[in-house]
């Protein structure tokens, strides 16, 4: 086969392969959200129980994803879970923002919900959020419900 035809075909092949890699990265995967590492700030929060929260779980406010969970560690001094979140620099929250661990859907994944407070000072990199609400543990909820039922039955 002639050299130029060969080169053309190989060129098409390599270009299509690289295009396929780009599609995998951008359309199938979510490289867009992983790349903007420089434009985030980190805040920490402590929870009594994080349930099934995982690293890279979304941080949402009003249902919009504003960041990701960056790190989860067990704090051995006070026996709580310390969760570090990376929040997009474009979104600023007051210092008294409350954090809770919520579940999307009945059996869905767990995420962190931020509810803005009224403080005029904004959160900075390395701050700690003080108002936290732990994940709901289904067994505890059922236990409490049964206990309340029993207490009602006793009162009658």
């Amino acid at each position, binding site marked *: *086969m002639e050299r130029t035809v060969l080169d053309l075909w190989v060129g098409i092949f390599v270009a299509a392969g690289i295009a396929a890699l780009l599609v995998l990265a951008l359309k199938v995967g979510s490289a867009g959200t*992983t790349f903007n590492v420089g434009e985030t700030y980190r805040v920490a929060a402590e929870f009594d129980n994080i349930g099934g929260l995982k690293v890279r779980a979304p941080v949402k406010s009003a249902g919009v994803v504003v960041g990701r969970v960056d790190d989860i560690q067990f704090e051995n001094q006070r026996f709580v879970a310390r969760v570090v979140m990376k929040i997009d620099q474009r979104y600023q929250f007051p210092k008294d923002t409350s954090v809770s661990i919520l579940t999307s859907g009945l059996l869905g994944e767990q995420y962190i919900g931020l509810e803005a407070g009224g403080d005029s000072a904004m959160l900075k990199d390395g701050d700690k959020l003080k108002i936290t609400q732990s994940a709901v543990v289904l067994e505890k909820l059922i236990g409490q419900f049964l206990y309340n039922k029993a207490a009602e039955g006793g009162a009658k």
Partner: protein
Amino acid sequence: MPERVLKNLRGIGHEVVNGIWRLGYASRFFLLTLARSATSFRRFGLTIKEIYFAGVLSLIIIIVSGLFVGMVLALQGYETLQKYGAAEAVGTLVALSLTRELGPVVAALLFASRAGSAMTAEIGLMKATEQITAMEMMAVDPIARVIGPRFWGGVLSMPLLAAMFSVVGVFGGYLIAVVLIGVDEGAFWSQMQNAVDFRQDVVNGVIKSMVFGVAVTAIALFEGYDAPPTAEGVSGATTRTVVTSSLAILGLDFVLTAFMFKGI
């Protein structure tokens, strides 16, 4: 009786020694190919020709298989997922299976049977017709001139073929799930994008396909170079290429998966 035991023991010993000798020979051959691959890049035209034979000519089978694998995954996944009311997750299922496992593995299996066997047969026949000896006579290094460009052509083609397989597969899944069955298009793509991580899934898939590319081409070239110079020898070597490289792909895939996804 002891005669027979001794004979059997000698047979086992012979097999083991032979196997280890062959393994050592294959490793030396592989290292020699790497050491003399400068020619493949200095005269890149040779490598381009091999990319054409290994990569471009494998495109049809890769694209058609990818499309059908994606479509079947979507059909089967939808059947099961809709029982739990999670039909939108079919995009996640198709994309994760393809980028993590099926893309690299099935593309490499097809590559081994389409391009690997051709390489073995070609080199085996070159050896049988004494072309390789003739090159040595003319002071042309056959490893640098024949083996090297084929090796790099295969290694460079494999990740590209695997990526195309995955993309076409995802497109096939989209055709079945969204166009044919009518899963919501926005949910299909957004759930997929949420679940597929660039570093964890896409990059690991590419690393896998690179490893498979090296394994398949190295096995194919070695079997061809080592083939007895007869018609039976070449046919046996071609069969061994397909069997050995398929087993190598599956074994390596297990090891790589165990390392890459152990935390999940």
